[in-house]
């Protein structure tokens, strides 16, 4: 027996990239716009999806809901009579291209695919799912330093939603600071101040989605 050293030079993230490219190809071929919605537990992702599905009745929507083990979010969304699929990651706190790859075939007839990622601001960052747009939702109740503490997810987002703004004064959160931090990290991102329970900012979100669906020629 003897030892050998091998120059491997293997990119360990290439498999996820390959599968993400495969997902992207499938989505393109079927004219589907996919939106990856990320954010912490309790930031309001599921409610955003429920309201979006209601507001865009007439557009064919599919929803993939990622969770570690439970089905609660899936059941909430499926109650709105929309095509939905739960994805339990089991041990991981993020979705990856492989998990999506197993499900997207079921959504070939939709125009818009909303993917609710597992609730956290770190792990989902580096896993491209093949989506067209990345959305990060944070709430003022997470503290107004939440943006500066998680630069990567905000830096790589297309849309940044600051939710629960009506509660800012009660939790002493400075929404201007949150918006400033987001803009500093990512001057290109669209930033939406929102409060889903007070109907603040929701129209702007729907306008964004209608815009991207129109651009792709999918709007009904």
């Amino acid at each position, binding site marked *: *027996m003897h*030892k*050998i050293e*091998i120059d491997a030079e293997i990119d*360990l993230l290439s498999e996820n990239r390959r599968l993400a490219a495969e997902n992207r190809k499938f989505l393109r071929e079927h004219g589907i716009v996919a939106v990856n919605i990320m954010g912490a537990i309790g930031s309001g992702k599921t409610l955003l999806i429920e309201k979006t599905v209601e507001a865009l009745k007439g557009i064919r929507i599919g929803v993939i809901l990622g969770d570690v083990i439970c089905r609660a979010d899936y059941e909430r969304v499926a109650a709105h009579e929309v095509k939905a699929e739960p994805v339990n990651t089991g*041990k991981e*706190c993020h979705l990856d291209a492989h998990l999506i790859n197993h499900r997207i075939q079921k959504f070939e007839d939709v125009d818009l695919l909303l993917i609710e990622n597992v609730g956290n601001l770190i792990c989902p960052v580096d896993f491209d799912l093949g989506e067209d747009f990345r959305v990060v939702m944070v709430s003022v109740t997470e503290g107004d330093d939440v943006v500066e503490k998680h630069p990567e997810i905000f830096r790589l987002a297309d849309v940044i939603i600051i939710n629960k703004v009506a509660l800012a004064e009660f939790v002493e959160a400075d929404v201007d600071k949150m918006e400033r931090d987001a803009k500093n990290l990512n*001057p290109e991102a669209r930033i939406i101040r929102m409060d889903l329970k007070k109907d603040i900012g929701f129209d702007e979100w729907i306008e964004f989605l209608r815009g991207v669906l129109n651009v792709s020629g999918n709007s009904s």
Partner: protein
Amino acid sequence: MHEMSYAEAILENLINLAERNNAREIKKAHLVIGELLLINPEQLEFCFRAISRETIAENCTLEIEFVKPEIRCVKCGKEFEAPAGVCECGGFVSVNGGKEMILKSVIMEVD
């Protein structure tokens, strides 16, 4: 914890490489990891130990080399340690690299 996903990718690639080289045992794996992947090395080690049990990588040491991203202001060129947003000069701070995970080299025992 995203370390488990990475540990699985490491193990899978190590075992493939060992099979291609008819190796009996994998002794050491040298990894180059970008700091912006936010990998906790202890957690990565823990995950790897858990999943490599009873494989030929059971006793493999993970040697981790962290590499820094290049973070600098596009206007004045000032360098930063972390993604900083906007520079004092008003320029946008760009981030390059820091997201890689490369299995650089592997030491294994062959007959």
